[in-house]
């Protein structure tokens, strides 16, 4: 059963939410009158076909995009009314693409995640040092500390960016397609790491492409199509063959993932090689 988009439903605690959001780039309206709440301590995954507005919604939640109407609230305040650095101490974002500064080492890049905690006369406190080494340990990049980021593999580099976001030590972390450009083993590596971070008490929000991966890792799924939230809730309650057909135009069968007992989408074959039982 799909729960209705929560309009500040009292039973669900939510530090981060958006109400009546109209999201647009220049003149092109991507989404209108969107209401969304990110459940605290959830691993929320936003999913939907290309151009459904999922990354746009994430960017609005991360205050990268100013909503045309409506507002994003963080801890009860309109997010744009809060001091920018204050927001950055509560909410982190791993953008879809970032530019690696020329010749920077892993340790130096991760250390940049401490920016919101620093001041002109407090450039490198012991708390900064501890947060950076913890972030590097959690993402398993400690050994890469002195390496030049440009020379790393795609998977390693993504772990370094994640380490930078972790060093920011925000209770909420948003990730915009963190697995794009990675091969399958590195995708799983990054998602497992996100699951660990979620278990450690962080609220994680990720935009993902792969529905099966979303079902596996999400505790809360937000399914979008054409700028609207079509369904929301736990994957096993939400994901049905009808929903997949409605949202992705894909006929499929849904079985239980043998590893995690979460829904596993098996697209209908056009031609069957062997007769089914």
């Amino acid at each position, binding site marked *: 059963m799909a729960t209705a988009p929560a309009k500040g439903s009292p039973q669900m605690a939510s530090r981060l939410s958006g109400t009546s959001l109209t999201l647009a780039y220049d003149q092109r309206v991507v989404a209108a009158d969107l209401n969304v709440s990110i459940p605290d301590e959830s691993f929320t995954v936003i999913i939907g076909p290309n151009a459904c507005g999922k990354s746009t919604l994430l960017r609005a939640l991360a205050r990268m995009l100013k909503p045309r109407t409506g507002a994003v609230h963080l801890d009860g305040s309109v997010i744009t009314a809060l001091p920018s650095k204050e927001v950055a101490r509560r909410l982190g974002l791993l*953008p879809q693409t970032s*530019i690696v*500064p020329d010749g920077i080492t892993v340790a130096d890049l991760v250390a940049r995640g401490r920016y919101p905690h620093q001041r*002109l006369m407090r450039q*490198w*406190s012991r708390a900064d040092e501890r947060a950076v080494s913890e972030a590097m340990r959690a993402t398993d990049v400690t050994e890469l500390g002195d390496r030049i980021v440009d020379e790393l593999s795609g998977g390693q580099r993504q772990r370094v960016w994640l380490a930078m*976001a972790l060093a920011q030590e925000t209770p909420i972390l948003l990730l915009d397609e963190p697995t794009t450009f990675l091969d399958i083993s590195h995708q799983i590596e990054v998602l497992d790491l996100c699951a660990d971070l979620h278990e450690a008490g962080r609220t994680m929000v990720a935009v993902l492409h792969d529905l099966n991966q979303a079902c596996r890792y999400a505790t809360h799924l937000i399914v979008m199509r054409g700028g609207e939230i079509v369904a929301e809730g736990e994957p096993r309650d939400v994901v049905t063959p009808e929903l997949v057909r409605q949202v992705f135009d894909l006929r499929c069968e849904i079985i239980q993932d043998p590893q995690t007992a979460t829904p596993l989408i098996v697209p209908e074959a056009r031609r069957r090689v062997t007769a089914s039982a």
Partner: protein
Amino acid sequence: MTIRVGSWSVRLAPRALLVGAALIVLACAVTVAALATGEYTVPVPDVVTAVFGQGTPVAEMIVGKLRAPRVVTGLLVGAAFGLSGAIFQSLTRNPLGSPDFIGFTAGASTGGIIAVVAGGSAMTIAGGALAGCVVTAVLVYALAYRGGVQGYRLVLVGIGANALLLAVNSYLLTRANINDAASAGAWLTGSLSGRGWDHARPVALALAVLLPVSAYVSRPMRMIEMGDDAARAMGIRVEAVRAVAIAAGVLLSGVATAAAGPVIFVALAAPQLARRLTRSPGVTMGASALTGAVLLTAADLAAQRLLAPTQLPVGVLTAAIGGTYLALLLRKDRH
């Protein structure tokens, strides 16, 4: 390297400090050499006493009145160009995004030539150059603006503006009478010859204000080099930082061009040299300013002495020295 006092902490890069100290020593050495040598050689001890106002009248005349203003103007203009180049290369994330490539210096030249042709004094020419630089910067920024300014758009629009303005400059020269054209031509190559304290003062003032401003925005600017979203996620007000940086960079290159003419290559080469010397990621403000100062004064010294008594305009030499050194460094990078 971290220095902590109570809850205060400052992070320092030992190599950057070392390079900075070496550049200062180098700048002093070039300064002394420039003050001591020339048609009339002043022994180094006499130079030192003259600088502190206790030399012989002849030494004080030569060092203090004739040579010092030129050297000091060179140091200040070089620093201003270096810093301005560092700012724009950081903003555009592109080594070609320096003011002498994206039209700002050419715009300053246009302003300067118009002032020369109009028969203006040195002060009017400087004012014209500064105005030309600011107007060009505003136009380039406005043309490149599309809900914020992307670095590569700024570079492309700037290169277009640069080409256009160079054509305008040539046209203005052909329309000017022969004497105006000659003096404008001399100013156009970039020269420190005959510069007095009147030229040095505005640059000193601009640096006194804008060097601390640049240092202050250099930390957020380094974050913006990683992308606007990445910087915003760290709590940086990207547009505000960018506006301050652009204003500082435009004023610096405008004031520098006003004082010495459009000396090319310092703004392009100094930040690149500084970055490779300090081996720091991204653009470094302080080291770029120091490198610019050394580069310009060394080039001016060479321009005066190499083919003496023939005096070359310093612009010819900055291109030669900076270009050669940069080519060598780029070659080394590949290995």
